């Protein structure tokens, strides 16, 4: 409102000054960042908006798909034959181990029955393929080609042939995002296979892992294998995770333990999304079929 009570002419009305607008938007952005990184409030907003950007994303993914398929197409016959021979050899080895495994499983069940312990249950799993690394350079994440439609849920464990590679953190309709174990914000509860010592394994950058909060005098040495402890209820117990590479006991209260992942975390392509350890659901078709037959 000017001095004599006139409105300013419309050519001068441009809203708040640029610096004021900048400050306002920067504050909004910082609030969004805190809400997302600190409290994870914005997953709903992200899912909603991602529906809108979905067509554009699908169109943009086409060139990458094309390049991937083309490289498959031009894989040479020799390469395929080598792969085939390799797989046959592996199958022989694992077949022999499977035979023993079945017998051991039987024995385990009988022993558990004798001890009246609860039975271990099978889990449903989804085979998936890693499409590409997530574009965010600050984290270590990959995108899988299976999503909510195939039953992938946030929090599920992802393994390859040699061990755990990470955990599903976000699920889209036909894709999902997996945070690798080497990400700085990823943790997994483990125990030492040799003596059952428990600890929590964190990503430490540069493709390495670090076992934290283990007392400096603990019985752990380079070469020990770490497997999941299953205490979190997310990862199944006993999955191989990492091998201890170096133990530094000179640090303060806790030892500094550097580990190497066992699975090909940054290399593998074919992976398995493991379901939660729970009882399989009852068969849905059985009841109506019986009713139909009864009259």
């Amino acid at each position, binding site marked *: 409102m000017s001095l004599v009570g006139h409105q300013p002419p419309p050519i001068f009305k441009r809203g708040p000054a640029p610096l004021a607008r*900048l400050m306002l938007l*920067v504050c909004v*952005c910082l609030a969004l*960042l805190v809400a997302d*990184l600190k409290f994870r409030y914005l997953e709903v907003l*992200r899912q909603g*908006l991602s529906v809108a950007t979905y067509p*554009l994303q699908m169109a943009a993914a086409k060139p990458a798909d094309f390049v991937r398929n083309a490289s498959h197409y031009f894989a040479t016959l020799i390469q395929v034959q080598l792969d085939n021979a390799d797989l046959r050899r592996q199958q022989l080895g694992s077949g022999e181990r499977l035979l023993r495994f079945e017998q051991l499983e039987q024995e385990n069940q009988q022993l558990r029955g004798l001890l009246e312990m609860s039975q271990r249950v099978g889990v449903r799993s989804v085979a998936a393929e890693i499409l590409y690394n997530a574009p965010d*350079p600050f984290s*270590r994440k990959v995108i899988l080609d299976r999503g909510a439609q195939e039953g992938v849920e946030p929090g599920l464990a992802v393994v390859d042939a040699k061990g755990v590679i990470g955990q599903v953190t976000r699920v889209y309709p036909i894709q999902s995002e997996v945070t690798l174990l080497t990400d700085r914000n990823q943790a997994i509860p483990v125990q030492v296979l040799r003596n059952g010592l428990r600890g929590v394994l964190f990503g430490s950058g540069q493709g390495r892992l670090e076992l934290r909060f283990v007392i400096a005098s603990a019985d752990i040495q380079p070469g020990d294998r770490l497997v999941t402890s299953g205490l979190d209820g997310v990862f199944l117990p006993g999955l191989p995770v990492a091998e201890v590479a170096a133990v530094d006991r000179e640090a303060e209260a806790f030892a500094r333990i550097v580990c190497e992942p066992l699975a090909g975390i940054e290399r593998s392509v074919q992976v398995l999304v493991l379901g939660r350890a729970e009882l399989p659901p009852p068969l849905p078709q059985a009841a109506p079929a019986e009713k139909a037959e009864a009259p």
Partner: protein
Amino acid sequence: MQPTNRSSRILLPVKLWFIYFSLILALGFAYVPTGTFPGVPDWVALVLAFWCIREPLRIGMGAGFVFGLLVDIGQGAAMGQHALAYVVVAYLAGRFARRLMWFPLLQQALHVLPMLLAAQLLMVIVRLLAGAEFPGWLYFLSSFTSVLLWAPMSFLLLLPQYQPVERDDNRPI
């Protein structure tokens, strides 16, 4: 409007839909999954800076905010990370718009480089504060490759506004 203020070519006025169309196209390029390959240009920042310099009255920080959020969603980055960076790019570009229009394209590109670097530096600071891993110095290569594209992109984005050269010796300008 002229290609730069020293040029004697007169351009047609820009169409608002073309500005947004080019931004959406840049968004599509930003969604192409290139993994962690270094030196991929930041298409949205580049196109946004271009239009904020050319048309500071039509487009500004609001568009930077919205397109930043869309990039965050598509790339799975933290919400608000690119929005913050693009708001700053739009502010700086609008702030220097009048000065920049007097320079030829190569010198414009030299002015745009610090804006893009500032945006990337902001993103690094924000994510490092949140406990992420430093992505390595090659991360900043992206600004340099973006700036290399400034001149060809200016030509392409102004293409709809060019009109045939009139050979008229009596024209005043």
